[in-house]
């Protein structure tokens, strides 16, 4: 153990190629993971924040918020279902927003809501007032500003901030139902809904009620015109979410595999070059396990050091990447990368085990 650490201290440049490769892979893993987290949160924030365990869509909308329409009569039927405690209407208008003094327009998702989502205050009383997601600050949005929405430039005033409420990577704006309806009428007349009609209903179940049974009961009560799902199911059903996650995870796992490969090939070469030295160790009484332990210790130290350097580089990169890019570097993701890197490096170094075990102590004397 001591010899392994001493070698690392005395001949650090020998390990430079592996460290450089692993540092770059760490940066790649952290940035990819950060992008995945940022994209996921940016896509799903508004739905994850909704109150209640269930969301009710029109059956023919195939879980698309924008294409769903639930009229007042259906809402009344949902409210009467046993096990349903609270029901609230929700609607969204996806539009572009002109920010005063900014050349780049922001894509926003203007929500009209009856029941306040988690972290969002009760709906503003005044029509035309909205709470803005903090992510819109990257587009130059400031409190008290008036934003111009859509081609006909419907105006809304930002009266406060909320966080993690974006939808489909569009900045969340939260106003009362009248604000949403007015914005739709102005910017998207093809999506206007009759008074009392919402796109989605948020449903809270009574204490002790089984949400999945209540969901089924709602769809039966509405004669199959609705499709009620749990909030987590609705989040996972957003377009592209599953594909996005699987694509990024495939890249991340491939990168971990590459890290293991780098360590394996590096230590295979190193072991080959040090066969004579290991033979001397064995001739002096060291076991194969002790010799192999040195290889593993060096692999772990290299992985840990590379992670620290890579994390510092990733943090520096975060400062350079434009704020509009949905990159979120979190502690949880960093721990995952650190553990993954160390495990894969240990596994990679294990490739040298066969060669270490095969070393004949007698070769130490010629």
């Amino acid at each position: 153990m001591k010899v392994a650490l001493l070698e690392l201290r005395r001949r650090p440049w020998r390990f430079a190629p592996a460290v450089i490769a692993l540092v770059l892979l760490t940066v790649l893993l952290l940035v990819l993971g950060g992008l995945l987290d940022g994209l996921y949160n940016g896509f799903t924030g508004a739905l994850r924040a909704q109150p209640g365990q269930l969301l009710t869509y029109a059956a023919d909308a195939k879980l698309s918020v924008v294409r769903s329409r639930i009229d007042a009569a259906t809402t009344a039927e949902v409210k009467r279902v046993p096990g349903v405690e609270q029901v609230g209407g929700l609607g969204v208008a996806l539009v572009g927003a002109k920010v005063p003094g900014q050349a780049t327009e922001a894509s926003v998702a203007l929500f009209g809501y009856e029941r306040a989502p988690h972290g969002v205050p009760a709906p503003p009383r005044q029509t035309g007032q909205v709470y803005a997601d903090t992510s819109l600050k990257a587009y130059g949005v400031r409190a008290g500003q008036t934003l111009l929405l859509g081609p006909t430039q419907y105006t809304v005033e930002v009266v406060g901030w909320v966080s993690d409420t974006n939808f489909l990577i569009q900045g969340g704006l939260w106003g009362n139902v009248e604000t949403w309806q007015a914005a739709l009428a102005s910017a998207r007349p093809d999506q206007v809904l009759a008074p009392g009609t919402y796109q989605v209903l948020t449903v809270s179940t009574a204490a002790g009620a089984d949400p999945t049974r209540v969901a089924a009961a709602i769809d039966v009560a509405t004669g199959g015109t609705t499709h009620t799902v749990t909030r987590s199911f609705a989040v996972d059903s957003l377009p592209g979410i599953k594909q996005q996650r699987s694509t990024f995870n495939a890249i991340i796992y491939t990168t971990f595999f590459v890290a293991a490969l780098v360590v394996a090939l590096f230590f295979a070469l190193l072991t080959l070059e040090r066969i004579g030295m290991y033979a001397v160790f064995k001739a002096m009484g060291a076991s194969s396990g002790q010799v192999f332990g040195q290889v593993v210790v060096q692999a772990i130290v290299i992985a840990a050091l590379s992670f620290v350097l890579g994390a510092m580089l990733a943090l520096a990169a975060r400062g350079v990447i434009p704020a509009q890019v949905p990159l979120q570097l979190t502690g949880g993701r960093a721990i995952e990368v650190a553990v993954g890197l160390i495990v894969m490096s240990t596994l990679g170094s294990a490739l040298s085990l066969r060669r270490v075990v095969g070393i004949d102590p007698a070769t130490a004397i010629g």
Partner: protein
Amino acid sequence: MLLASREIRRAPVRFGLLAGAIGLLIFLVFFQQTLLSALLNSFTGALQNQSGTVLVFSSEARENVEASVLSPDIVAKVAAVPGVGQAGPLGVATLTFLARGQQVDLAVIGAEPGKPGQPTKLISGRPATAAGEGVASAEAQGLAIGDTVTTAAGRSPVTIVGLTEQSQLSVLPTLFVAYATYMTLRKAANPDATAVLASAVAVIPSSGVSQQAVAASINATVPGVAALTRSDAVANAPGVSSTKGSIAIVLALAVVVVALVTGFFFLILTVQKTASLTLLRAVGVPASYLVRGLFHQVTLVLGVALLIAVGLLLAATATANAGLPLTIEPRALLTSTVVIVGLSLLGVAFSVWRVLRIEPVQAVSRPGLGGIE
């Protein structure tokens, strides 16, 4: 050279395994490239394969056709811009239909008959010219000429009169209809809608006027719009750049792995053979001969690996059911091959350096070769 070939013949398993492993990795690169082009085609095929060579969106839609809305007066203003030969409104929306008793999502594209926006990849039947007629993309599985689809509520029937290929939009099969039919379908989907506006204007420039010139002219003349050439509209469509970026990372990783594996394999081989190579140098074999032998082996291994990769790719594209029409693009594969071979040769540079560093005098100072240290 003879020595290098002999070594491969004497150790066919070792070199065969390496060629197989690299062949699999190159196949991974080739297959991902083929998938990427199929995926991009399914994102934007309908925009690429419609007759309008310039597309005009509302500027706040940020080049997303489904987020764009243009009022009739804007459509008229675009049509009046000098250099515009033909122009017509284009409606684009995703709607749920009933087809053979099943609910299916289709991207509906409405264009006025005879005006820009018509599908250009018709493989059977005829274009939709009358109300209630439609041309479905061949990817709309189960739809055939003569079939009828309706809105989810069973209203506004559309009869399929033609089939088109490579015309998906946002990975959905498409239904090309006359603009009037598009309006009817949108109203049927949302009876509360106060108006159905065009999503874009499809433009064909006058003869002798370039697409770029017309796009620039429209942008300069009509406020609140973003005119793009068809190829720019396709390149900037939502999802295209992020998909390209994600797959490019995987491709780059795979190429680096190929170079790493090749480089490390030959480095390990060189280190293992150092004693023999030293002896060869000591008996007068020039270093350049040994280096040429090394490159000879690398070239042979990569050649066999490429053959394996191409064979696997042909088999995969013929049999894989990826839900997308897979077509091999030789130019992209050639580019990848050049990059892979170049990087792999770069990867063996360290081995070359090790060979060149060998001192013939070490042959007489190695106990293993009978020398005295």
